[in-house]
């Protein structure tokens, strides 16, 4: 296995680790930091893949990742929680050890699912698909167990990271136009999330999503 592949695998492991760390994290600020670090890892792996394969547009992707996911979005989230004055601990619906156990089960499931496919991969980083899937599922799990709006959004963004990782590592990146589109969507989405935080805050005096359980069948 080439060095770059080894490094990518290492970064992939790091990504998964950060995913678990986010799942376990109670403090919102740390969560944002972790998210930014995830972006860094992502960008790094993209760069290495770009370097290893010579796919020029992956450099661009890496730059985009750094700009968007390491700098802009964490900054926006920082500003938001400053403006909204929310620094409380993150509450979860299920306690953290249980969540972690479920997370481990998910990771195993994802690996099992990805293994037969990985055999087919022609890329240098065949084993990363399982890790990408695992981090997507972990983010999903995080969205399910968090009961505040901001962590939920971070979970969503982390899921996007996992997808991005899958795209770069497993397939050497999607076509550029698609990646630009995805990035645009993520950006606009983040802004809309920001707008929502204000609206929700205005209406409910809190960003606890348990206030938003009025629309239901009874």
């Amino acid at each position: 296995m080439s060095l770059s592949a080894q490094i990518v695998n290492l970064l992939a492991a790091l990504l998964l680790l950060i995913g678990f760390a986010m799942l376990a994290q109670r403090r919102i600020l740390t969560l944002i930091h972790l998210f930014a670090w995830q972006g860094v890892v992502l960008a790094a792996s993209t760069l290495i893949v770009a370097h290893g394969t010579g796919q020029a547009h992956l450099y661009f992707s890496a730059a985009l990742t750094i700009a968007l996911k390491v700098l802009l979005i964490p900054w926006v989230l920082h500003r938001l929680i400053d403006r909204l004055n929310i620094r409380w601990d993150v509450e979860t619906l299920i306690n953290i050890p249980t969540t972690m156990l479920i997370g481990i089960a998910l990771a195993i499931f994802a690996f099992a699912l990805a293994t037969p496919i990985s055999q087919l991969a022609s890329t240098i980083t065949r084993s990363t698909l399982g890790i990408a899937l695992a981090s997507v599922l972990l983010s999903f799990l995080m969205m399910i167990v968090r009961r505040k709006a901001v962590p939920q959004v971070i979970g969503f963004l982390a899921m996007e990271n996992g997808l991005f990782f899958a795209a770069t590592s497993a397939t050497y990146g999607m076509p550029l136009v698609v990646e630009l589109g995805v990035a645009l969507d993520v950006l606009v989405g983040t802004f809309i999330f920001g707008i929502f935080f204000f609206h929700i805050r205005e209406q409910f005096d809190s960003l606890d999503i348990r206030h938003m359980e009025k629309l239901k069948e009874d």
Partner: protein
Amino acid sequence: MSGALACIVAWLALAVASLLRLRGAWFARCAAFPLGALAALVLAVIGLQALWQPAAAMTLPLGLPGLPFHLHLDPLAGFFLFLLGAVSAAISVYAAGYFADEAPGRLALIGLQYHVFLASMALVILADDAYLFMVAWETMALASYFLVTTDHREPAIRSAGFLYLLIAHLGAIAILLAFGILHGGRGDYSFAALRAAQLTPFWSSVAFLLAFFGFGAKAGMLPLHAWLPEAHPAAPSPVSALMSGVMLKTAIYGMVRVIYDLIGGLRWEWGLVVLVVGAGTTLFGVLYALMQHDLKRLLAYHSIENIGIILLGLGMSMVFVGFGHPAAAALGLIAALYHTLNHAVFKALLFLGAGSILHSTGLRNLNDMGGLIRRMPQTALYFLIGALAISALPPLNGFVSEWLTFQTALQAPVLEHGVVRSLLPLFAATLALAGALTAMCFVKVTGVAFLGQPREAAHAAHQAAAHGRIDCGPAGRIGMAWLAIACFVLGLFPSAILLLLNRICVALLGAGLPEDALESSWIWLVPSSRAQASYSPLIFILVIVAVICITAFGVRRFYHGRVRTAPPWDCGYPLQTARMQDTADAFGQPIRHVFGPLYLMRRHLPGPDDPAPRFVLRIEDRHWVWLYLPVARLVGFLSEKVALLQRGRISIYLLYSFLTLIVLLVFVR
């Protein structure tokens, strides 16, 4: 064929013209219904012709791609077109008078819906592909639904309409599925293709059950009848007449068409199913009719009963087909179709009579009526004729078809299967019982409504009328007279009708009645052979009329014709008021006593210190308790459980998608 189509187009044109309110409401008021009656007459003639002529077919450039609307006019369709035309002509004439003083807006809508209703019924009969059939079938339901809910401000009428359309729709889906089975994935949906389908016995039985219950839902067959006693009385009377008289018959048409013609290969087990349901329907209908005091509701229950009688004929015919006795089968089919025609005529007549009462006095509760024969002699006469006909009394038409049904049952000895052979007479016994009960019921109706002294409400209505008579206008009289005459014609010349119906049997079953039956002279009605049975209503009525005339003449000639009038004999009780007469409920009381367990009775007895004591007794249909309400509860229960899916918590929703994903991934692996 094109003539029939022209009539349908004419009806549709009339519908649109009514809606457009030509010349104010003049058109809808004065021209639409008479013109509609004219079209109906033409249609009846065309239908009659079709009984002799070879089948004609036509396609219209409408419908699905690759499946234009197929029309087909064969003897069976011709017979039902005749029924539709002949009966609806009378009803339209009557309606012209009945609706004359409606408000213009309502009138326009009624004119639209009424004629669309007629046109869709004609299309149901003419349709030769599953798609057109279903379109016409549901349009018919829809048009009649809007007619039923004409007085939609009353909650009872709304719920009647709801129940009606719901059951009609469920039935329609069942019919649709039957067509789906017949289609079998080959060819198109034209009836010719469906007819050619080769089905395994299992699937053809499923198709039979779907079609039987699908059409049965429309016909008011047990246990899908609950809508009928609600919806028929709710509609304006001409519409009730049309629904009971004609629309229910399209369901019979559908049954015959789909089961005999399209599914084919009849099995005797199917016949038994039809017989059992038919017998239940018959008895149920008449027993509940006896408990009613709302005139139109009572008539509606009788429609259920008569559908049961028709089903008895059909069922026997199917049993005979199943065992391979075409002549007996033809007799059963003829009996069923004959009763279909008869019921159309006399039930329409009775509903029109009830409509006249409602229109002139505003009464529909029998217990409020009384003595109407003096104020509405014409209506009374026509109603009496209808009542005698429905009671299956000779020499009117109702008797002929019941007689034929009995004759079919008496063919039972030809069957090889011992059990079935001894079952058929039992169904005949059911019919006999129902016939006698019907007579009792109509003695009650006629007696309580028309005869005796006017009760308070009727008296008030009499007083309110400016001049002594409050009978219906000329249009109404013509309409009723038409049907009353039809009762006599159908009753007195059965052998002619027999010949017509035999052609349908030949077309459907490939065999008709034996030669002996067909070649006997027109006076004699002979179902199989002269030695077995015969009936001649003409001689019958001639003898009675002759005896009556001779006796009357003789009595006057040899004695005298002096008559004195006096107050009725009071039997020593000086106070005799109209309230002391038997009411409709009192008349039904002994039946309630005898058949008590069949009814769901809710009694309210006043306490000893009740200042305004009233005894309240409500008779309810047990089917509600053991079928309809449990189904409704089950749906409620399930939807309550389903609602747990949507509890408002976003985490749970996310969990659903998560689990869906995981489960699918596991499934894929």
